[in-house]
């Protein structure tokens, strides 16, 4: 069977050598350290913005902070989490050691050095251009170079994932690649396609321009290239959460996966649909025809499908577990679920935040409704809920699940873990509900103060107060996560194997299209050329005027 489970008696020291434990832990710790730094900045930001603390007020510090917070949360936490998850899941599910271990470590160090290089201009206020680095504001070249190294480091991970899938398939002809690795490889393939946009912007525009080698850049082209990356990047972040819901959660709560094949279908759809639809980030930009925006809206709604499929499979898998545990009746199975298991609590909470966040996403994705919310605080509220909420809560669950298995020790405190997950979710709602509201009440995003007319500003005050409370709860929750995992390093020894969920209908063989990405790469290429070909070409076919660099 594809997802054969490791026996509990598996000799731990032997498996430790084979599984990439130290690489996984290194990635996870880098992710967590930067998470805490970024959380502290987040709390400072909500406090500064509120205007309740005049002593804090400083646009210089604020925008350095938001730029650092966005980079750390969006690029650093995610990339290292995804790499650690991928390496450990691959070696444990495929039961093989990492090929080219030195190469993988090289990728890790490259990414980390990139972050440290970028940190210098960020923290000294020389890269206060925000994590979307929209030109013609210019940052110190070290910022662009550091960010590029981080991306190149992540490409090493992509190559490792694809490479392992190839080796495994050669050794197991005709067999289905374990779902967890199929998912991680789908993410790796998607990320390679995704990063073409931002890498082109960096290499052909921002880096030479910031070094003075280019006089001007075409801002319309830069924004178009960035939009290529900006949508699919959120699926890069979300993928591990979905993969854990399909392949780890059902087993961890004592049940089975409802359908292995639907998981594959969802992963392939996420891969194919998510890159060529970035124009929903450009709805309000003046240099593309509304017709193209409309076409991208259709594409954007297509990605709702794999998410809706996932919702069904995940809830059905939970129901199986609930009934196996004696739950009866239409909803009785919900109470029978092991809510004291971190993986269970996180999955349930993640689904709730996904439901609310998904609704907000529909509004943003709408070509017409977007007008009301574009670049207001609604948008920041939305992505904190779905990214900071759904995604991060699942990252926490992955850490709680993998750390004890990597270390061969018990989790320091399960109940603290469950409390942490609830606190995170409550904090996220306390933070983001008012955040959405001030957005609808017109507050623009990315402001450090509110020097507008009083009637407008007065409506926002109470909400800004609530946001500070939400931020504090999240910071506390983040510290509980780190404390728990730190203490796990010295918790009592206990060997438990990393096991993956088995589907109710075993799928030892699956159709070729659900076991390989070759065909899908061709589909993606055609789809991207169709949706981005002309919009990018127009900048070269018409005379345009570039912009010179401007300081902040």
């Amino acid at each position, binding site marked *: 069977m594809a997802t054969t489970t490791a026996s509990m008696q598996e000799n731990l020291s032997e498996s430790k050598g084979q599984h990439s434990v130290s690489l996984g832990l290194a990635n996870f710790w880098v992710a967590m350290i930067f998470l805490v730094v970024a959380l502290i900045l987040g709390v400072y930001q909500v406090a500064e913005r509120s205007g309740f603390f005049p002593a804090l007020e400083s*646009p210089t510090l604020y925008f350095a902070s938001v730029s650092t917070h966005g980079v750390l949360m969006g690029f650093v936490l995610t990339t290292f989490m995804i790499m650690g998850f991928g390496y450990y899941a691959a070696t444990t599910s495929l039961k093989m050691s990492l090929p080219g271990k030195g190469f993988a470590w090289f990728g890790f160090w490259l990414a980390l050095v990139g972050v440290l290089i970028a940190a210098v201009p960020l923290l000294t206020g020389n890269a*206060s251009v*925000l994590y979307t680095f*929209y*030109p*013609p504001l210019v940052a110190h070249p070290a910022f662009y170079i550091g960010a590029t190294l981080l991306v190149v480091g992540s490409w090493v991970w992509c190559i490792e994932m694809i490479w392992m899938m190839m080796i495994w398939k050669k050794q197991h002809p005709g067999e289905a690649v374990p779902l967890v690795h199929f998912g991680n490889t789908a993410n790796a393939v998607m990320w390679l396609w995704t990063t073409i946009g931002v890498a082109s912007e960096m290499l052909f525009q921002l880096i030479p321009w910031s070094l003075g080698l280019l006089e001007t850049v075409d*801002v*319309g082209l830069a*924004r178009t290239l960035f939009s290529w990356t900006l949508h699919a990047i959120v699926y890069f972040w979300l993928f591990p959460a979905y993969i854990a819901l399909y392949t780890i959660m059902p087993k961890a709560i004592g049940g089975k996966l*409802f*359908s292995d*094949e*639907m998981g594959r279908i969802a992963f392939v759809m996420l891969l194919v649909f998510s890159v060529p639809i970035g124009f929903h980030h450009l*709805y*309000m*930009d*003046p*240099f*593309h*025809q*509304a*017709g193209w*925006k*409309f076409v991208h809206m259709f594409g954007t*709604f297509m990605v*709702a*499908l794999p998410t*809706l*499929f996932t919702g*069904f*499979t995940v809830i*059905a898998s939970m129901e199986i577990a609930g009934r196996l545990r004696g739950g009866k009746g239409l909803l009785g199975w919900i109470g029978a679920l092991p809510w004291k298991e971190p993986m269970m609590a996180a999955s349930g909470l993640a689904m709730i935040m996904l439901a609310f966040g998904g609704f907000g996403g529909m509004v943003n994705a*709408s*070509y*017409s409704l977007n*007008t009301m919310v574009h*670049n*207001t605080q609604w948008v920041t509220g939305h992505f904190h809920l779905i990214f900071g909420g759904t995604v991060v809560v699942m990252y926490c669950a992955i850490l709680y699940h993998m750390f004890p298995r990597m270390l061969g020790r018990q989790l320091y405190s399960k109940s603290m873990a469950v409390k942490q997950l609830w606190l995170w979710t409550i904090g996220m709602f306390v933070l983001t509900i008012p955040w959405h509201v001030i957005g609808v009440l*017109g507050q*623009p*995003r*990315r*402001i450090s103060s*509110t*020097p*507008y*007319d009083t009637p*407008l500003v007065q409506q926002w005050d109470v909400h800004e107060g609530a946001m500070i409370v939400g931020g504090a709860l999240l910071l506390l929750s983040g510290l509980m996560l780190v404390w728990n995992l730190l203490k796990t390093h010295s918790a009592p020894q206990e060997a438990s194997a990393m096991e993956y969920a088995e589907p109710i*209908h075993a*799928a030892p063989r699956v*159709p070729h299209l659900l076991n390989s990405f070759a065909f899908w790469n061709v589909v993606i290429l055609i789809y991207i050329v169709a949706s981005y070909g002309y919009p990018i070409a127009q900048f070269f076919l*018409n005379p*345009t*005027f*570039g*912009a*010179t660099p*401007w*300081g*902040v």
Partner: protein
Amino acid sequence: MHIDETEKRWVWITIIMTAIMVGVLTAYAVGSNVHPPSGFEPIDSTRLHVEGEFMEENLGVKTNPDGSITLTMVAARYGFYPSSIEVPVNTPVKIRIASADVLHGVHVPFTNYTTMVVPGYVAEVNTEFQKTGDFSLLCNEYCGLGHDHMWSRLKVVEKSGS
């Protein structure tokens, strides 16, 4: 390959639901004529003040022969020019705005008017203001350390002569 019957039904439900949603949004966009900015009109942002429609003396509200309004504005750190604007209610308004420096955005909360203002391109939006009153016109894209202070006022008044 095994797909459960209930799951197949769910797949159909999601497809139909999504199609309905896209249908409603399309009908709304077409029916109420709410469209995002459209077009491709390059302009040399460094020469706005020297020549053409965005020179200082050409900015502001103009009434066209057919009664509609054209509003021409410049966004530059950290303000919108002209800084005070008066437009009539329920009248088609064509708003043309260009940036003299970096990226900006405009949003007039509680109306349908918003657009990004991207250096090198004219941002044109056709809309109508449906309520009279005093509105704020806010920059909604980070444009530098003074971004918060980039805003002005827009007054929507009764139609004259009606």
